[in-house]
């Protein structure tokens, strides 16, 4: 039987959802919102998932292992053809920033809900992303490329210590070393070069200034693909453990108007320089000592924490991505740099925070969410769901909005206390800990705050008992 697909202009356009978990549920909802028909590309492990049941159709693309399913561009493109898709939404992770999928789809005349392949390449590696940023006038950390590993120690003074050795072709936090002085630099540079050669096929290194007390602040952007840029405020994502974000909020608390202007203007310049298409995030470090702003990277996709921005401004970024990809008006308003509310997101993971954040997949026997003003839950969980061990541990995002930051922190804490997830161990206790901690309540903690604060909490507890 031959199905009439995208040739029929009266039919609802088909959106192929090339992802899983909570973001698949989120994209399906956005597709419905714009009147499109969501079809899910799922691995065999997810063919009966809650997202699968919400979709109009499920296409099984491969076995459970992501390497043989969600990470294969040719399988996603084949599924898009079988679905008669007008657009493919890649979500985050997996293939969302791989130019190969965008190119395969381009060849088949199927839209990709993301930036153009050449944009993905331009911002995809550290060195080229940095060049693009410098060219657009975006502030970057003082850095110098190493030509001769043996002479590296001589370059350190121009940056200042402590500094970072980074691999030009590294990524994902790999290939980075912290160096305290010239002696350490001389000793570690040859090692780092050999390691980068082995890991990335290229031993090129550079030195970059290290900011020991910095916040992670990022700016939500949306480009029309022709040079027009819209800015949707900023987010603070400084509560992190080993570079994994745990809590995000919009707006970033306690930024001066001048710092905020630097962040937003730099992001706008970057979007315009790239003629960026769709939703993206420009990430920065904000040094708490000097208030210096330093470009980190561009995340050329929708991000996990996009709901805080959506709730703060009352917009639907995922629907806007789909609308733009379909050639429609994204219907996004122009908004002020600071939203009229504060929104906090808690990532609830299937991990045991008392045991070094060990993954804890299993069957969810019961799940119950809080309700009330300003509460949103993005999740794929339902009672009886078997949380699979094959993928990442994100179970749900609890998003809470209130009129002020103090009210948002209190509301988030109260909402977190009401969550019931039985059957597996979750990271909920850490949220109750952070939301009650004076440092977080004050606002503006640095990225190195959570790790030691969490590790030392039991000692503090012992102290207080004595």
């Amino acid at each position, binding site marked *: 039987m031959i199905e009439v697909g995208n040739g029929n202009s009266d039919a609802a356009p088909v959106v192929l959802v090339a992802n899983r978990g909570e973001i698949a549920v989120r994209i399906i909802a956005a597709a419905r919102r714009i009147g499109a028909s969501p079809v899910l590309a799922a691995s065999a492990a997810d063919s009966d998932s809650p997202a699968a049941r919400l979709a109009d159709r499920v296409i099984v*693309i491969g*076995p459970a292992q992501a390497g043989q399913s969600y990470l294969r561009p040719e*399988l996603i493109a084949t599924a898009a053809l079988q679905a008669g898709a007008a657009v493919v939404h890649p979500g985050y992770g997996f293939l969302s920033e791989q130019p190969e999928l965008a190119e395969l789809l381009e060849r088949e005349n199927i839209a990709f809900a993301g930036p153009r392949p050449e944009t993905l390449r331009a911002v995809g590696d550290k060195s080229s992303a940095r060049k693009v940023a410098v060219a657009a006038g975006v502030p970057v950390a003082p850095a110098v490329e190493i030509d001769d590993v043996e002479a590296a120690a001589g370059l350190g003074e121009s940056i200042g210590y402590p500094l970072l050795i980074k691999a030009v072709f590294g990524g994902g936090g790999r290939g980075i070393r912290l160096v305290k002085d010239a002696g350490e630099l001389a000793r570690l540079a040859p090692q780092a070069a050999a390691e980068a050669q082995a890991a990335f096929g290229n031993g090129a290194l550079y030195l970059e200034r290290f900011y020991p007390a910095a916040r992670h602040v990022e700016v939500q952007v949306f480009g029309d693909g022709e040079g027009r840029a819209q800015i949707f405020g900023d987010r603070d994502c400084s509560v992190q453990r080993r570079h994994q974000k745990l809590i995000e909020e919009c707006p970033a608390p306690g930024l001066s108007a001048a710092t905020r202007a630097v962040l937003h203007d730099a992001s706008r310049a970057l979007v315009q320089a790239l003629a960026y298409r769709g939703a993206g995030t420009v990430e920065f470090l904000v040094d708490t000592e000097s208030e210096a702003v330093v470009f980190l990277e561009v995340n050329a996709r929708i991000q996990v924490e996009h709901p805080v921005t959506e709730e703060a401004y009352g917009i639907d970024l995922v629907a806007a991505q789909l609308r733009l990809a379909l050639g429609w008006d994204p219907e996004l308003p122009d908004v002020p740099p600071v939203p009229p509310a504060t929104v906090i997101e808690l990532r609830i993971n299937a991990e045991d925070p008392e045991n070094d954040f060990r993954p804890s997949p299993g069957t969810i026997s019961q799940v119950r969410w809080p309700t009330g003003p300003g509460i949103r839950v993005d999740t794929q969980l339902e009672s009886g769901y078997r949380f699979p061990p094959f993928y990442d541990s994100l179970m749900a995002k609890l998003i809470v909005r209130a009129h002020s930051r103090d009210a948002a922190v209190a509301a988030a804490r109260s909402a977190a206390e009401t969550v019931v997830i039985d059957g597996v161990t979750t990271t909920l206790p850490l949220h109750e800990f952070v939301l009650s901690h004076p440092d977080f309540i004050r606002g503006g903690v640095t990225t190195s705050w959570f790790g030691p604060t969490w590790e030392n909490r039991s000692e503090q507890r012992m102290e207080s008992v004595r």
Partner: protein
Amino acid sequence: MTDNTTPSWQHLLDLVTQLDSGSYDSAFVAYGNISVQLSRSGALAAPVATAPAPAPAPAPASTSPAATSPEPSETIIPSPMIGVFYRCPSPGAPPFVELGARVEPDTTVGIVEVMKLMNPVTAGVDGTLTSFLVKDNEQVEYGQALAVVSEVGTP
């Protein structure tokens, strides 16, 4: 919940994932009173008791009945990937196998095309190819049943 002799459900899942990503055609792992059998061809031996244990349990009911069955049994050939199924090496050429033909585990019964890449599908078992469950040139998904092979059990 876990002691030294009983692997947890998580251990078993890890094991299965690990074995599945390897190149094994079949595998048998026993630990304590737990044993795990995996086979890509669908031909599983009846579970073997590893301890002085109760009588061997019957093989799980599935598309791959135990090889000890005396009657001819049927095995489904699943699609190894999403794509388009072809019975012939090229348009107009005779099919790889005719209905009723004998097949061996490595006999090619068709191909699945993914973005111009041709992936052979092999029978996986000895027997007679009794039916195709999808048409030539039809879109298939991963794991979809493509054909049935009737095996002749050991008398």
